[in-house]
């Protein structure tokens, strides 16, 4: 293999695919990036056997071929080179990188050892969505996912496709986030509704990898899903298991409804949380005048603080305690200027959303009083 490539392109490609590389005692080649030159295209690939990322860049291919080089080492070199154009050449599993004044000969592992990246077979149609939209939607839910020993299936983002929407849902059983993407936002040739579990790591890599505003094509079969644009392709296994029937726990009736300016609400949460209590517990109470809410935090031996936040309030006077970080996560994920909070009582889940909904809500469990 012999090729000439623009450094910045190579740097982008390495930055993205290295997210899929992994240390593996049995298969050391997994910590390497595969560079493959074929017909004017140069493709970089990495995989951890759960997901694989491929990134195609343009360059001048003098001789087609393949090489694998440890991701960390390759990134370290390419990121620090100043020259624009790089000459790469593979000889006996080693890769030479040359510029006018730099030369490196890197030991790799034979490209024949590199796993073959599986393809999604016979998908029943595909969804096409703008990368930026998918990325933002995922970012609104992905932080709520967290697998546990008993529930490995919660280490995932649930994708629910129905005729009129695509829903993304994640939960760790303490809080839950759901984003609904209406059908106007994507195009579909998908013939069947589906409900699949995309692993958390895959969702995180999606947010990281799809930076441009290209169209992403999503297709899947029984065991895999692929997300691809002109330059990037991500293939991942789907998670086995049944996502909980979460619809039942979404509160529908509230005894107290609060509307607050979002940024102020976020500051108030951070202020109360700044006390750094052990449990991270802060209390939200509706003031008796029903014109403000009181956000407070008390910890013995540390101190206490109270913040009165002007708010529009409907319903009864109620208070509930939450983990401030969880509350913050939800408040941040809401779009727009206003936040709407619905409280049922002090041991039922509360709901956060934008007042006009915006296709997104966040459910969080209160901390039960001892």
């Amino acid at each position, binding site marked *: 293999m012999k090729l000439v490539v623009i450094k910045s392109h190579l740097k982008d490609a390495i930055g993205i695919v290295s997210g899929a590389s992994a240390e593996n005692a049995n*298969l050391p080649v997994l910590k390497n990036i595969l560079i493959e030159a074929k017909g004017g295209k140069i493709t970089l690939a990495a995989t951890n056997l759960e997901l694989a990322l491929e990134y195609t860049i343009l360059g001048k291919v003098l001789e087609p071929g393949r090489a694998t080089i440890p991701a960390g080492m390759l990134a370290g070199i390419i990121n620090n080179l100043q020259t624009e154009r790089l000459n790469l050449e593979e000889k006996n599993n080693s890769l030479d990188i040359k510029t006018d004044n730099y030369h490196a000969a890197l030991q790799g592992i034979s490209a024949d050892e590199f796993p073959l990246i599986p393809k999604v077979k016979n998908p029943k149609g595909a969804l096409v969505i703008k990368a930026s939209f998918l990325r933002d939607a995922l970012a609104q839910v992905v932080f709520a996912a967290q697998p546990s*020993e008993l529930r490995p299936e919660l280490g995932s983002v649930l994708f629910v496709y129905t005729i009129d929407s695509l829903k993304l849902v994640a939960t760790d059983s303490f809080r839950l986030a759901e984003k609904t993407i209406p059908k106007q936002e994507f195009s579909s040739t998908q013939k069947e509704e589906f409900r699949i579990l995309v692993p958390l790591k895959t969702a995180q890599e999606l947010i990281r990898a799809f930076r441009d505003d290209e169209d992403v094509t999503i297709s899947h079969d029984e065991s895999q899903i692929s997300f691809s644009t002109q330059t990037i392709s991500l293939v991942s296994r789907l998670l086995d298991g049944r996502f909980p*029937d979460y619809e039942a726990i979404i509160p529908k009736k509230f005894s107290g409804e609060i509307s607050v300016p979002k940024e102020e609400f976020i500051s108030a949460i951070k202020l109360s949380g700044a006390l750094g209590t052990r449990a991270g517990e802060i209390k939200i109470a509706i003031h008796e005048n029903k014109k403000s809410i009181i956000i407070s935090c008390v910890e013995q031996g540390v101190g206490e603080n109270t913040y009165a936040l002007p708010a529009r309030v409907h319903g009864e006077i109620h208070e509930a305690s939450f*983990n401030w970080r969880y509350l913050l996560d939800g408040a941040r994920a809401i779009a727009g200027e206003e936040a709407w909070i619905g409280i049922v009582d002090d041991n039922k889940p509360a709901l956060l959303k934008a007042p006009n909904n915006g296709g997104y809500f966040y459910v969080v*469990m209160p*901390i039960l009083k*001892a």
Partner: protein
Amino acid sequence: MDLEQLWQLTLGEMEVQLSRANFATWLKGSRLVDKKDGVFLVGVSNNFAKEWVENKYQKVLLGIIRGFDDSAKKLEFVVDHRTSVADPTLKKITSADVRTFGNQMDLDFKVDPETNLNPRYSAATFVVGASNELAYTAASAIVQEPGTKYNPFFVYGGVGLGKTHLIQMIGNEIKTFHKGKIRPRYVSSEKFTSDIVWAIRNKRMEDIKKRYRDVDVLIIDDIQFIGGKEKTEEEFFHTFNALYEHSKQIIISSDRPPSSIPTLEERLRSRFEGGLIADIGYPEYEMRVAIIKGKLQEHKRSLKDSVIELIARRVKKNIRELEGVLNKILFYQDAKYIDIDEKTAEEIIEKSVQNFSRRVSDDHILKSVAEFYHLSVDDLLTRGRKKEVVEPRQVAMYFLRDILDMSYPYIGEKLGRDHTTAIHAVEKVNQEINKNSALNQKINIMRELIYKN
């Protein structure tokens, strides 16, 4: 030759030809799923393995298989989810997390907000055996005609023996049997207490009264916890009377019979004793086997019969523990890609069960038994044959044998007796347990005392 043997032989040859790393990465956990008209279906652990094996090893594999079975024409590959591995590094959610992050949502099942019943507890998954037959029969009768026959129905038994399953099952069955015309409501006594506390604080007692008196079947779990909480007991007493007078069914569970809940008020105790009291005992061997088989079926898994029997033999006292051991064995099978044999199962059981009993010392057992009978440890050790100490002493010997698996000579020595006396004592208690339910009950409570401290 069956598929499993054939595949073992094939893997044996492959292992010689491949590097250890390649073999471990691509072929570990694979199996022959099926064979039909010369087409062999090979299950591998993930899509990458499928791609790799299909492209790189297909020819070699087919060659080897043909060597054993000349009908082989073709190999096909599938991703076999049976072999997917659970991750043991995942976090356990502890009660500390609940304090920090909030309660956990009930994601498991749609717990019906009207009745509070969890549909998981169905009659289909309830295993009936000699130890719970009476309770089950009574339950079935109640399902058909709630409020008429056995009212109140009081179920008691040790931890993890299926009380909650039984009483929730009654609620669920009533709902389906009477097509929603009869409204059951399930509540844990903890929730009942917290509701009362809430109502007192917020002056909303009427709401609570209405909520609990406006049902047709009230199911209360773990009633022993309301003992000693005066206001809650009183409110429960009134609720009980209100329901009872209107022939509404009341179902109660506890870890011991009413007579053994010391803090329970006398008037409540006599109410409880007015209906049917049924106990759930330890499941016998056949029942334990049936439970394990049921669980395996539920998870669509299988284990060798000898392993199932081993688990049933070794884990006797707690169905929850039985499930725990079973899960551990299944997990081990996944993680190591091997079929569990008796030896490995024995080790796993040993580990889980030992952990449990290692915390318990012989002196601790003697102390707990003595305490239970209001005696001192010295009373147990004296040579006297007074009636008051005979039973305690025999029970102590029984526990030393049963929990710590001590030798008879050692037990004898510990209590200043001959080893034949020890043998006699243990045998006697073992027999009595099955005949004498009062003794059985005492033993259960003592066992919990021993493990609790």
